[in-house]
């Protein structure tokens, strides 16, 4: 089954929150996961990142890009990471222009705060059943079970509308 880009991004972000990521880092992960899967990169990288919470790339990579931005006093800055597929996806998910180049075993990220990122064409995504279930199960940890009181008052509406 193919899913829309927005579905995948939203579900990945919710899964990260369900797995314990703070909301901003979870949102970054959602955007990065979409870029990752759009580029046909392995789901396993995303699974590993979710499993690494409360540490790992979901926490570290947004900070890496924040550090790059802080260093971009004239608008541009570079930073290095050990070659890691997921960092490319995070770079592609930035609002500002971010390029990655691999040289001698490490990956260089160049950020340009004077240019917006290129618009990526988002494509529909087919998730494996196992990965989809993992995301769904993690995202479900955020859901609050319904009670009689919440069903009646939580949304604030009545139950029939035959007027």
């Amino acid at each position, binding site marked *: 089954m193919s899913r*829309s880009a927005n*579905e995948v991004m939203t579900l990945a972000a919710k899964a990260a929150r369900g797995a314990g990521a703070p909301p901003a880092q979870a949102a970054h992960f959602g955007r990065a996961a979409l870029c990752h899967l759009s580029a046909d990169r392995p789901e396993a990288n995303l699974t590993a990142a979710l499993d690494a919470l409360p540490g790992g790339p979901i926490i570290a990579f947004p*900070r890496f890009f924040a550090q790059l931005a802080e260093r971009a006093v004239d608008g541009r800055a570079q930073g290095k990471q050990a070659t890691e597929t997921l960092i490319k996806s995070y770079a592609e998910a930035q609002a500002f222009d971010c390029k990655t180049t691999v040289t001698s075993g490490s990956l260089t990220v160049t950020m340009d705060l004077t240019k917006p990122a290129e618009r990526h064409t988002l494509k529909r995504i087919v998730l494996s059943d196992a990965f989809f279930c993992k995301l769904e199960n993690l995202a479900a940890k955020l859901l*609050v079970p319904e009670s009689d*009181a*919440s*069903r009646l008052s939580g*949304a*604030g509406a009545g139950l*029939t509308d035959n007027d």
Partner: protein
Amino acid sequence: MKDYISPPQTELRSPDEVMRLTRMGSMFPTRLSFLRTLMRRLSAERVKVTRPVWQMDADGFGHAVYSLTLGGHTYSLVAISTDLPPELRTDRVIATAWDSAYVLYDGVPNAAEIARIVASAPKQEAARYTEKDLVLSRANKSVRLFAHVTESLRAGRQPDTDMIRDIGYLMRTTAVYGNGKFGIADRQVIDTRPGLEGPFAAEMLTVWLIRHFTHELAEHVGGAPLDPALKRYLGIGNSTGLGMAPFLVNHPVLLNNWMLVRETALARVRAVEHLDADQQANLSRLATRAAQHLQEWNVPDPQHQARIVALRADWETLCAGFDWSRPFALEHAMALAQPLAPDAQELVASLIIEPFGDLVDGLADCMGDPFGAFAKPIAGTQALKTWIERDFDWALTPDYDAQDQCGQFWYVSEAKAEPRLGLRFSESGAELESPLDIGRRIKALHHALGKADVAVSECLAQHPEHALAVERVEMAERYPYAEIRDNLIATSCLPIDMLRCKLSFFGAAKFDPKSDRWTRITLCQGAPLATDLQTNADDWWLPVFAA
């Protein structure tokens, strides 16, 4: 590239004044509302609506397809009407069946695609959709009015005008889904297409076509045509609950752009020094129309009805004081409203923007968010602290430990994965709270910033939980209207104010709150019919009953 000189403008009203729930909950539609922009576009292109499929039984159950071409692309509304038992008719998102279901389709569907949509759309969230499906919606009948209209037409007479005026729609939508929900097309598929670039343009097109369908369905069941003047007044209802409220918090750049455009439009017209005779006459005519609109706006809720009654009185006072012949008459009109309630102030703002399409309509192109947030980093934690103290007084003021300042919490329900609002001290689930507590988070960040000046990223290494607050503070300089400057978890927070703000940008009028958490509204009331697009397509601000 063509040079463009911005028209003169006054200072913008400050975000501190504008971005308050009370004011947001007093907003009216303007000519920059999305439906108005869409209708101007449809009219400019002289769009023709065709009906290639109409397979409806005598009771009005079956399906239909409507098609139109806009900006070089053809779109079709597939409408399915079903026989719904009364006990299943609810406006709430927990419903599982509706009187009618709709898909806005990219192109003209063939028989197989129609069959697919007819089978899936009535299931709404329980089915899956494809990239050819742009918008998914459903609507329930106004049972009273639909029955009355069809019975009247069958009896060879037009329906009672009082009922038409008092209800104003034959059906009301209870959800209009776009942007990839349940597998439909992502917004990116259409957001560069002429006519659909603006926010919610595809959704508004869907709503307008649904209204068209409801008219034709009633005429089909009634066996006779409705008076066109009555049809023009029959809009499409909408029932909106809490699901819409978090959108404004979760899309700060969009919120900023909508509000900034509206405030810029207001600032441009306030700077107009002299009004010619036509402009003066137009403003007087519109002010009179607004008075009639207020008279026709009646709701069952006593508290909101009292607000409308008070606004009628304020409006009478204002109309007596408007002097469109004096210099800076529009600035003067705003000044007249200043001592009055926000309802009156916002109605004046909406009125004085209305006649000045040449000054403001181009601003509608700036209401989208094609790029995302461009917030540059703040240099160090002491600068961050200074920014918070400069721009976020509203967030620092509340004592979030006090029960009334944190008495509510936003959450997502397991039953329907929809946003809800709970009472923190009497309901369970607060540990799963959604992060809509922006003010509390910013105050917590401020508290966590020590005296040492270190890089913000270094601070976040120790306190990753503050990253959201840092991002929102960083946005403040570039996006000054991005934040609702109120405590959204206070016991006093009324989500209905957020709903009214968003719905006014859609073009909604006749707000009919059913509680502080959901409201009925009317969309497209007075909007051109499909047959009206050649003429007079843009003069329907605050429509009144003309029959």
